[in-house]
């Protein structure tokens, strides 16, 4: 397996007023290509902060972050956008779909920002929607769909540009148990069939149990990192 992500001694602190809150302490780990990783921890433990850094959303941190051969900590804000567009897909707890746009337009967004035209991406969009089990939903508006369906749309959007890895922040947090399992199955399928690396933040132990690797964070420190075969 090849190394995809390597973080070394990542530190992050917020200043709120006169208080300096130290959120992440010397976080170091490697993630290989094709892994399905769960990051678990209490709320406030710093796991979201960590994946924001890994997902190229947050450029303000101390320490080293190597993505493939790139020294991420040396890049500018503009380079971050391109990096995000081509290498990472995001799935959020509350889906974060654009309400006024149709399903197809939502899924098309990353492709459009990659410089494609609307007509070029039509074929790709139906492929993506088929992959997440929403064939024929192109013209629907997200607000008329169930939570599970909306999350599938957001997954389709996340994988649209064939990114190297997916970041999922509590992807099942707003869903019931049955739908959660469906979404989890979808993630597992993408991981197995397409070889997409998935980094998932969750505090649902059942979801974590289905991942090959679980990294536990308490108070901004990695306290546990276990791999197992499923």
């Amino acid at each position, binding site marked *: 397996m090849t190394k995809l992500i390597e973080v070394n001694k990542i530190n992050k602190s917020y200043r709120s007023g006169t208080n300096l809150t130290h959120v992440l302490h010397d976080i170091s780990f490697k993630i290989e290509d094709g892994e399905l990783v769960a990051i678990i921890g209490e709320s406030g433990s710093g796991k979201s902060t960590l994946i924001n850094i890994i997902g190229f959303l*947050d450029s303000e941190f101390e320490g080293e972050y190597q993505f493939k051969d790139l020294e991420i900590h040396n890049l500018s804000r*503009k380079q971050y956008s391109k990096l995000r567009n081509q290498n990472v897909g995001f799935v959020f707890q509350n889906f974060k*779909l654009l309400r*006024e746009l149709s399903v197809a337009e939502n899924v098309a967004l990353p492709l459009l*920002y990659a410089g494609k035209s609307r007509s070029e991406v039509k074929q790709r969009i139906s492929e993506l929607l088929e992959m997440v089990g929403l064939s024929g939903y192109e013209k629907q508006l997200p607000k008329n769909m169930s939570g599970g369906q909306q999350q599938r749309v957001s997954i389709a959007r996340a994988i649209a540009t064939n990114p190297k890895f997916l970041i999922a922040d509590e992807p099942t947090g707003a869903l019931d148990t049955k739908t959660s399992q469906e979404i989890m199955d979808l993630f597992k399928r993408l991981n197995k069939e397409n070889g997409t690396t998935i980094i998932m933040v969750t505090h649902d132990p059942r979801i974590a149990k289905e991942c090959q690797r679980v990294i536990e964070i308490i108070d901004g420190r990695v306290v546990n990192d276990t791999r197992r075969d499923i």
Partner: protein
Amino acid sequence: MLVSELIKSAFQAISTNKKRSFLTILGIAIGIAAVITILGIGDGVSQTMRKNLGNNATKKTQTTEIDYTPDDISSATHGFTADDLTNIQQKFPEVRKIKIYHVSHNITTHGSVGLNDGTYSVTLLKKATSEMKVIAGKNLSQSQLDAANKVALIKESIAKKNYGTIQNALGTTVNIEDKTYTVVGVYKNHGMYTNLGDVNKYSADILVPKKGYYTAESKKTGDVINMKILTNANPSKVSKKIEKYLKKNGTAKNQGVYQYYDTEKALKQFSTVINIITALISFVAGISLFIAGIGVMNMMYISVSERTQEIGIRLAVGATPQNIMTQFLLEAVSLTVIGGLIGFISGAGLAHLIAPLLSSQVGNGVHIKAHISMNAFVLAFGVSTLIGIIFGILPAKQAANKNLIDILR
């Protein structure tokens, strides 16, 4: 992102908030319309001036006109005779051609309708026409006009005043210039001026055939002369000299007044007035455009803060801050350009409506037509684009500089 895709999403965003967009567009449209209207009229006036006064470089002669008005309006005195013409031509060699102009419409003359003597205005008809609406009896036919039949149409108000009803007037007679005409029809009252601002010939009291109205004798005299004067001799000055000469030596100098009407001067004065008005309205329009621009800025700031989530999502899926800025700037520019185009169209329409009304202010048969030039279009387009950019850039920058982490938290 492709520019075409950016434009598409700009229009999408504008149409999701129709009311707000409409109001912002309206502000711009009003400002631009005001500018285009006044520019259209101003250009129209200067074009009319050039056309009416002739291009001095290309035309050899220019036509001027001198009128005679008798003191006693009902007298049969005429201002010009053949002698006057010969005298003028001998005295002023700059005058290339001179002729007595026989007025054919709204001639003020003495006459009688029924038993009532008085002053009436008469229009002479050469061709059968239905431009006036005959409401009783029959219209004059072409054969009647050609045969110089002594038949006449009288105006509704004249008929009612003299005979009570319009039907009673049919078959009666009118006397004009010692000739008796039989009334065969009555026509509807018309306003003094046409829509184009000309004097309306059918506003006269009586219509009679042109043929036979002027006799061989009366053709030699008249109240108006037309002269063609060499352009480089300064027609306006020469005409003024002729006016002075006629006041001293004219055949009817004691019974009335000779007057030279200087169209050039009138138009020049008018155009000065228009220029002042243009400057004034442009100033006001400038202020209104500035205020409309602030409206655009206001709307864009609201839009940016309302759509924070959208900005965050777009950034997360790979939009660059540049993309976000372009998107919001394009939205602002689309709003103002739509406003500019609407303003241009309504301004052009308004100019065409208002210009004819001004013609009657200048008088003397001058037509003022609005002239919307390509420059005006470029101006409307350019100014509205510029307003969009100037007032859109700050909100767009704010949108682009939003902190992604704060948005998505």
